[in-house]
Every structure is written in structure tokens, then in C-alpha cells.
């Protein structure tokens, strides 16, 4: 397998001892979510600090922590876009992308903590700048809303429900066309979506059922639970191998967990993983050496007033990435 450093070709001056070490990037953005039922801002922006307080940095043995400033959330439409906070998401994506790029160039593993799913765009942008390719999208929803399947005429759309569509180049140029990269951030055939829970429901075709007519590989949560996590991991890795994807980004939306074990998310549901199953899946993917960075999103501490789920999530993340193989390192 090719080393990431060899592909990015940019590590000659970096310190070898940092190779594969984890850099935490805190991305406290809630820009991609609609307001709460009472009109207030969603609380997912608080997750990075709450998870840090729950011991995340020590649990993953992070060597450094990079914090982005919380972006301002606007309730009203922004100039020139029908996407809520669209301009702000673009700006935040550039900031985040630069951090991810910087960490990857140094040979370290960026572990990005959101925030909502719109942070995926900045993560992928940074990964692409560093020579990465491909996406494993673990999420209880496909997040595949785009103007071809969604009513953009009468309401603002929310990027957290569109992140996979935007990443694969569907939707406004504002969030699909990126400096130095162009469009898309990831090709359909280089995406594996794992965890959609509504694909077998009657309304799926009416929402973003068109995902099944794309080149995106999808394994529903029902499929995962039927075949087992180990088999799912093998199927995902087989796909990555067949596409020669050695430098893949991993996106994990915590709503892929069953609502009985993780209700503190924007859109809880079931069926879903338990913490152990999710940890095993991430672990097996990371152990392959094909995953170069990851983001974890959508945990909302305001829905977890007693902090019951933050420690469980920290343990799951740590278990998931602890066994990663360090395929990349300073170029020889």
C-alpha cells in the first residue's frame, strides 16, 4: 500500500517522531443544522469542549490540539444562497481544510471533532489538498439532499442533511466547487455509505432515494446488523481496495448509534449500532491503514444535560482509532 507521505510528497522537513500521531482538531460549528423547535441554535457546537472535558485528548493520546473559533450562526438567509449559513460554512470549510491539510502534511492523523456534519466538507477539502481520495461515510442518514430531490423554493436548506450530496458535487457551487480542487470533493464510486436506516421505509424514495441510482456504494444499518460488523468492514475494505483508495477520509455521524444508546443527537433513530459495534467497525477500518483522518459529528451536549453519553462516546472514539496502522510516515 502506498504511504500517504509518498503521495503527498511534502514531508521531507517534518519531524519523524510525529508520524501517525493524532492531532485533535476541534471544530465547534453548528452552521449546518436548522434551529431547534424553540427557535434557538442547536447545541452541537458545544461537543468538542464537552468531549475534551470528558478526557478525549488523553484517551486518544493526542499530541496536540488545534481549536477553531466557533463561527457565528445566522437565522436569516445569507447573500446569494438558499443554504442556511451557506457563506459561513464555506468560510469555515476553508479554515478547517487548512488545518486538516497541515496535519496530514506533517504525517499526523487528523481527528476532527464537530460540530455538525457540514464540517465534512472542510475535512475532505483538506484531505484532497494533501492528496487524499475517497470517503467512508458512516451515518444513520445518507445526507443526500440536493436541489434535484429537495424543495429549495420555500425554505432554507440545511447542509447537515446535504453533506454527502455536496461532497459528491451536487448542489450550489458555493459548497461544491473548491479552490485548487474544483468539483467534486469525492467521486461517487469512491464513496461507501454505511448506516442509512430509512432505506427500507416507504418514504425513502420520496426523500433522497436517488442515491441508489448513483455509483455510491451503500450498506444500510439493517444490512450491517444482519451480516455482522466484521463482514461489513471486509466489504468496505474490499471496495476501497478495488478502487485503489489508500488515503481515505472517515466520517462518523453519531446518529448511526441506536437512539437507545445515543439519544443526544440532532435526529436520533433506530435501528442503529451500539457503542461496541461502532467501535469495532471504525477499528477494523483504521487498522487497514487506508484511513488517513476522521471526523466525529452531531453529538449535542444540550440533549445530554447530565453528561451521560460524553464518556461513552470518548471511549468509542478511542477504541475505534487506537489500533490504526501507521502506513504513512516521512518520505524516504
Amino acid at each position: 500500500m502506498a504511504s500517504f507521505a509518498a503521495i503527498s510528497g511534502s514531508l521531507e522537513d517534518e519531524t519523524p517522531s510525529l508520524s501517525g500521531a493524532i492531532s485533535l482538531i476541534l471544530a465547534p460549528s453548528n452552521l449546518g443544522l436548522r434551529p431547534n423547535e424553540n427557535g434557538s441554535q442547536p447545541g452541537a457546537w458545544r461537543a468538542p469542549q464537552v468531549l475534551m472535558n470528558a478526557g478525549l485528548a488523553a484517551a486518544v493520546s493526542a499530541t496536540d490540539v488545534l481549536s477553531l473559533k466557533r463561527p457565528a450562526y445566522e437565522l436569516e438567509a445569507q447573500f446569494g444562497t438558499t443554504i442556511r449559513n451557506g457563506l459561513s460554512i464555506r468560510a469555515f470549510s476553508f479554515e478547517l481544510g487548512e488545518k486538516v491539510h497541515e496535519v496530514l502534511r506533517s504525517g499526523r492523523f487528523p481527528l476532527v471533532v464537530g460540530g455538525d456534519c457540514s464540517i465534512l466538507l472542510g475535512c475532505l477539502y483538506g484531505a484532497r489538498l494533501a492528496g487524499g481520495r475517497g470517503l467512508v461515510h458512516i451515518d444513520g442518514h445518507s445526507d443526500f439532499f440536493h436541489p434535484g430531490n429537495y424543495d429549495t423554493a420555500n425554505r432554507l436548506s440545511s447542509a447537515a442533511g446535504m453533506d454527502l450530496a455536496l461532497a459528491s458535487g451536487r448542489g450550489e457551487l458555493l459548497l461544491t466547487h473548491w479552490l485548487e480542487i474544483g468539483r467534486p470533493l469525492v467521486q461517487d464510486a469512491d464513496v461507501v455509505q454505511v448506516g442509512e436506516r430509512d432505506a427500507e421505509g416507504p418514504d425513502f424514495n420520496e426523500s433522497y432515494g436517488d442515491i441508489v441510482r448513483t455509483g455510491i456504494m451503500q450498506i444500510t444499518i439493517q444490512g450491517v446488523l444482519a451480516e455482522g460488523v466484521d463482514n461489513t468492514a471486509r466489504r468496505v475494505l474490499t471496495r476501497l481496495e478495488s478502487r485503489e483508495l489508500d488515503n481515505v477520509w472517515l466520517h462518523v455521524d453519531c446518529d448511526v448509534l441506536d437512539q437507545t444508546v445515543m439519544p443526544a443527537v440532532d435526529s436520533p433513530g433506530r435501528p442503529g449500532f451500539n457503542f461496541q459495534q461502532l467501535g469495532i467497525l471504525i477499528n477494523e477500518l483504521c487498522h487497514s491503514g487506508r484511513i488517513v483522518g476522521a471526523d466525529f459529528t452531531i453529538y449535542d451536549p444540550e440533549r445530554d444535560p447530565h453528561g451521560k453519553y460524553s464518556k461513552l462516546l470518548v471511549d468509542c472514539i478511542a477504541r475505534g482509532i487506537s489500533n490504526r496502522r501507521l502506513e504513512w510516515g516521512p518520505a524516504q
Partner: protein
Amino acid sequence: MNPQLLNSLLADGPAPGMTKEVDLFGRLNGRWRTLITYFPLDGPERREEGEWTFGYALEGRAVIDVWQVPPRAQLGGANGTSSHECGLCVRVYDPRLKLWRFTFHGPVLGVTIDMLAFAVGSDIVQERFYGGRCERWIFSDISHERFFWRSVLSTDGGVSWRLTQTIEARREM
């Protein structure tokens, strides 16, 4: 005519340090003769001649243009011809977002249009979403002597596009 306003508004070139970005549109600086073709849904296509004048503005951070149909030389005079269309476009580069904010004011037709603009390959693409539609204004084949412009509209989220207008522009000065 207020020369002080013109001096304050217009600029000789792009702002220092922003040449590459501002010259995405700045290279259109000058006056262009235009041949405009309209493709209405409910009638035959029709053609008109016009004039399009671009210039740097706001200390070189913006590019503005004045759009006119027919050309100014055909306006006024004994027959009292007035513009069928005239408009002011203001484009301001946003270095943080790495895009252009664009507003068109068309007082004859009573329209105001907001768009965002991007460099897409060798083209410039301006885009807006409204009423469930996506509209793009695309500058292409840009050289010092000429460029081509077209407007396309999609009502299915970008799956298919309908050509609504084209402009062939030749530099006059």
C-alpha cells in the same frame, strides 16, 4: 456628470496583492459591442445589439459594468430612442470566501439580481437559486478581443439546462 464621484468610484487596476483574483473579471476592463440572442420559451428567438462597459472600482477591489441595449450611440437624438435595457453590475471579490458577490440592478426592467461568482476551469460562472430554479450566467472563451456569455436555467436541480440567452462580445476599446 460628477468627476469627483467617478474618481472615487473607479480605479486604474486591481488592488495591490489581489491582482490574480480581481483580474478574473478585471480582464474584461474596457468597452465591448454585444450581439445578444434571446431564446424565449413562448416565442421565436430574437437578436439585438448592445454595449457592455467594464471597469475596476472601489480601489481595485471590485469590477463594475454598465450593460446597455441598444448601444449608447443609438440613444437620444431626434428620434428620442431610449434604452430597452440598461443595468449596473457590481462585483466585489471576497478574499475570505474566495468568490465574488454580484448584484445586478436593472432599472428599466425593474429587476435586482444577486449571484455568487466563481472561476470554474477557464470559465467564470455566476449562479443563483430562486423559486426552485437554478440560473447560471457563464463567461467563456475569454480573450483580449472577444468573449462569449450565456445564461442557462435549470428547473430540476441541475440535471438539465435550458439556454435562455447568449452574448457574443467584441472589444471596442
